[in-house]
């Protein structure tokens, strides 16, 4: 297992394709994403703060094919691609050490009307993903998968090339990491649209047109374009 994951991490770095996906969080998003990734042929590891044994039944029944691992064992973090699917206000419970150098998709949202006001984000003009990236120090953070509802993730997927295929935006400062995430999004059944640097993720945060709607790649590109002067001014 460990030599295999070392190999696949290697291949991820060179070929822009991930084979192992580590998901932190087994809530609505974590489990829906796990099933969708399994369907696409990935190896999936799931960790929460509960012991792996306690999650074993959950994983067997709700995301069959995935493996429950202990969050302390760093096995989820040691995947080609790590997805953060935990409540944002718990981001400080993440372990920056084990995520350093990893490609990390931040699927978390700061959505005060639903989840409440948190000072870390309320008093910081940056996007929530930039705050998370700073905390994680050295992780290659890509913001994505945050603007699709958890159940839509398993219902809206379409084969590549279909004109009505739904698109998902991504933003990040590391081009290689973004390439890996783009191929992941594509295999999940969605077109990937690059919005630019991590700060440009503002265009698909909660309460934006992108966040609340469903769009094709062309529509999404237009909306990102439209948001650009706004993002630059902010």
């Amino acid at each position, binding site marked *: 297992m460990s030599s295999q994951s070392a190999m696949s991490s290697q291949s991820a770095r060179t070929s822009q394709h991930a084979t192992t996906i580590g998901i932190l969080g087994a*809530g*609505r998003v974590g489990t829906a994403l796990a099933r969708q990734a399994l369907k696409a042929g990935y190896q999936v590891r799931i960790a929460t703060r509960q012991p792996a044994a306690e999650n074993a*039944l959950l994983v067997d029944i709700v995301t069959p094919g995935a493996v429950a691992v202990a969050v302390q064992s760093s096995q989820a973090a040691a995947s080609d691609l790590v997805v953060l699917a935990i409540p944002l206000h718990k981001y400080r419970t993440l372990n920056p050490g084990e995520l350093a150098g990893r490609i990390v998709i931040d699927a978390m949202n700061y959505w005060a009307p639903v989840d*409440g006001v948190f000072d870390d984000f309320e008093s910081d003009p940056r996007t929530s993903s930039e705050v998370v990236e700073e905390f994680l120090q050295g992780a290659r953070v890509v913001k994505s998968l945050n603007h699709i*509802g958890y*159940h839509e993730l398993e219902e809206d997927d379409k084969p590549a090339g279909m004109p009505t295929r739904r698109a998902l935006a991504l933003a990040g400062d590391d081009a290689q990491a973004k390439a890996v995430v783009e191929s992941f999004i594509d295999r999940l059944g969605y077109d990937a649209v690059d919005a630019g640097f991590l700060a440009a993720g503002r265009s698909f945060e909660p*309460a934006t047109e992108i966040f*609340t709607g469903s769009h094709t790649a062309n529509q999404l590109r237009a909306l990102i374009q439209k948001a650009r002067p706004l993002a630059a001014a902010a």
Partner: protein
Amino acid sequence: MENTLQIGAYSFGDTQLNPDGSARSTAEAIKNLFDAIVHADKAGLDYFGIGEHHTISMPASSPGAIIAAAAAATTQIKLGSAASIIGTDDPVRVFQQFATADAISGGGRIEITAGRGSSVETFPLFGYELGDYDELYAQKLDLLLTLNASATENVTWSGTARPSIPQLDVVPRPVQGSLPIWIATGGSAPSSARAGRLGLPLAYAIIGGQPHRFAPLANLYRQSAKQAGHTGDNIKVSVATFGLVAPTKKEAVERMYPGWVNLNVEMGRLRGWPAPQRGSYLAQVDAPNAYFIGDPDDVAERIVDLHRHLGHMRHFLQGDHGGLPQEHLLESITLLATEVKPRVKRLLAAK
């Protein structure tokens, strides 16, 4: 899996609107809700749930008070919270209010459903920190269960979310010794597993998506209960969905639509959603989607079909939001009790 299905309704209170769209009084909404419960009891509905909400459009802030009043005015219907936001309330008071209602009802008709709530408005209102969300919920649920399981009035509990209780009397005791206490969840796997491990009945609120997709969660709940050694009557699932019944499907769809628009406009203002589209409403009103809106045949068939996936023992609907005219709520309740319920029973027996 259960093979009987209780049919019910639930409400958060629904403030009526004037012709110009302005809100009528929240007091009227509470009186309407009370009247609807009394009506449901007479019509023969099995269950009525009252959710704790603290907004002008949904003002049922005090389920315990409404349930106590309804307990006195009804004879057969089961009454419960749907849900009580336990993390920001005092479990001692919640337990006492529901035990009081239980005494008034004659015993055995009053239930508590403990939930986290889908919005966070109770945190600033009652002066709690959102960062303590998980800890508050866990400790207060523990206290509520301790109170309920106590053999006598005299209770001891210690924790940090609330002052400890050193051998103090908590009265009254429920007529039958304890009250049914349910856990409410919007359908996360960890919550399902946790409820199973605790051996508590589980109330799913399914407000979007395809309800049959909750099947693995219900299975996880049952397996978790089994693994922890919990079997028997307490291991059961209920389902709450949006829904409204009218003589025809067309009428049901048209009756619920304006309220749905109002609700979504209000939520949209709060949460930055775009203007609600009729298309997204219509996409939800047919099987296998989330809204149980239709004529008695349609709704009964869909409830029984969902039962094949979830094996739930109770299904209850909320149709009154955004200012649904009271007469439409009452007619839906009548049809649920007199038309949907017998059909469900027949369809289940035929399975």
